[in-house]
């Protein structure tokens, strides 16, 4: 009764799996589900840093886990979801972020291309510091 009062008008009943019905719905849901892998990455990074804070033995046993097939499978899933998030997010940024150039606006594709360039440069810089510097 309260629901009816709060939402006047006709609300068609939706099946629970409405988001599996069509391609666009599935892609929308997939983008939301990438966040679970973002959380998984955050937890693994926290465990990595926790092991580092607990000394050499804890750190080296964490490296041993990183070498396992299970960790590699988990990271492969995190990387795949992460790349899907990156691609969809950077493509979206061209729509969200309007760049004004005097009286005109930069084309969406140019904004997205600039974001992809930033992504590649930042990734290269992180890899350099993480591995070699």
């Amino acid at each position, binding site marked *: 009764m309260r629901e009816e009062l709060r939402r006047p008008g006709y609300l068609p009943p939706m099946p*629970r799996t409405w*988001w599996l019905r069509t391609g666009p719905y599935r892609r929308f*849901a997939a983008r*939301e*589900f*990438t*966040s*679970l892998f*973002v*959380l998984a*990455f*955050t937890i*693994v*990074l*926290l465990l*990595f*840093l*926790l092991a*580092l*804070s607990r000394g*050499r033995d804890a*750190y*080296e046993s964490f*490296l041993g886990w*990183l*070498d*396992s097939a299970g*960790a*590699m499978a*988990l*990271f*492969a899933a*995190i*990387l795949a979801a*992460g*790349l899907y*998030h*990156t691609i969809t*997010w*950077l493509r979206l*940024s061209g729509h*969200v972020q309007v760049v004004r150039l005097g009286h005109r606006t930069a084309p969406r594709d140019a904004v997205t291309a600039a974001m992809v360039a*930033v*992504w590649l440069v*930042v*990734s290269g810089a*992180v*890899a350099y*510091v*993480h*591995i*070699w510097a």
Partner: protein
Amino acid sequence: MAGASKPRPARGEPLAWALFAAGGTVAALLLPVHAAILGIAYAAGWLPSDALSYERILDLVGHPIVKAYLGVLLVLPLFHWGHRFRFILHHQFGIHGARGVVAGLCYGIALAGTAIAIFILVRI
């Protein structure tokens, strides 16, 4: 005080969306390279032998700028997750009531993760 019987405007909502957007951008730009290095390249043996050695990583993470960077890398994506998971619970799991409880749970976990991240980073 004003309009106690009307639905209250959610005052935290703009902040939640701002953290979601900031975390989404941080995750988009930084997550793949970190996942590729720690999760794939190391196990595949593509890294130089001392790249992840205890001394090297302790030295690297001990630097204040790297700690601040790791703080951003951990905390903002946590709020990105919290915001999206809140809508996963509403959209995909079909929980339509208890909006306050769902929001409190999601952002509460992100806040707890923030506290854990700061605690760990300060101790290194």
